[in-house]
């Protein structure tokens, strides 16, 4: 579900714009990596914070 919300949010963003996503879904790290590989967007960073994951994505 975080991936769907991320995709929806990034859809209207311009090329090169960055977005920070926080998710507490355990599947998020693997899912966000796969999503970036598939869609060609860049995963700038992925951190494991206490209680959630934080990813920064740059739109291609």
């Amino acid at each position, binding site marked *: *579900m975080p*991936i*769907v919300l*991320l*995709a*929806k949010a990034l859809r209207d963003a311009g090329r090169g714009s960055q977005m920070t996503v926080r998710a507490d879904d355990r599947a998020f790290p693997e899912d966000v990596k*796969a*999503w970036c590989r*598939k*869609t060609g967007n860049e995963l700038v960073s992925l951190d494991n914070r206490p209680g959630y994951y934080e990813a920064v994505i740059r739109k291609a």
Partner: protein
Amino acid sequence: MSAAAQLASSGLENRLAALEAEVRRLAQSSLEQSTRLEQTTELVLGTGQREKLSLIVFSGSLDRLIAAFVLATGAAAMGMEVSMFFTFWGTAALRRERVRVEKTLLERMFGWMLPRGVKKLPLSQMNMGGGGPAMIRYVMKKNGVASVEEMIELSKELGVQLNVCSMSMELLGMKPDELIDYPGRSFCGVAKFLETAAPGKITMFL
């Protein structure tokens, strides 16, 4: 240096300059060619061969519908082209909560037995007279998972295509006005499904 030698060396210089210009021109054209090739590849991969997911939703139970819409919205988020084909109990699951339509007695009898609205759907297991679905809905809400109704809205936004089997509509005595609103919804048969699914990468029957 004799006049003849001077003449020869200037001739060589001219040829060298001409060769240099030729090499530069070739390099430029090869660069242009490779850019064009890249753009073509991008075009082919980007639009011509967008990966497809086709889902047949046969079941009308809440749990299977959740799985179907999680897959559909997820695939759409991955940039895939998603088509859902609702048939049999899946078709019945797309009924609105309450609409009055003209029906024959037999069609009306079917209507009494079919679920009225997504909120009334049973679970395929552990239904417990409607207690199961209520529990699932509670747990999903608690965990921040979108409800099926919300996932249907998301599917609309992400451009998931919704197709309804016209044969099952007839068998179940359902009328088009009884179905939930969905932009671009179409009625179809097996030919349309096969045409859509055949070039696709993933097809599932739920």
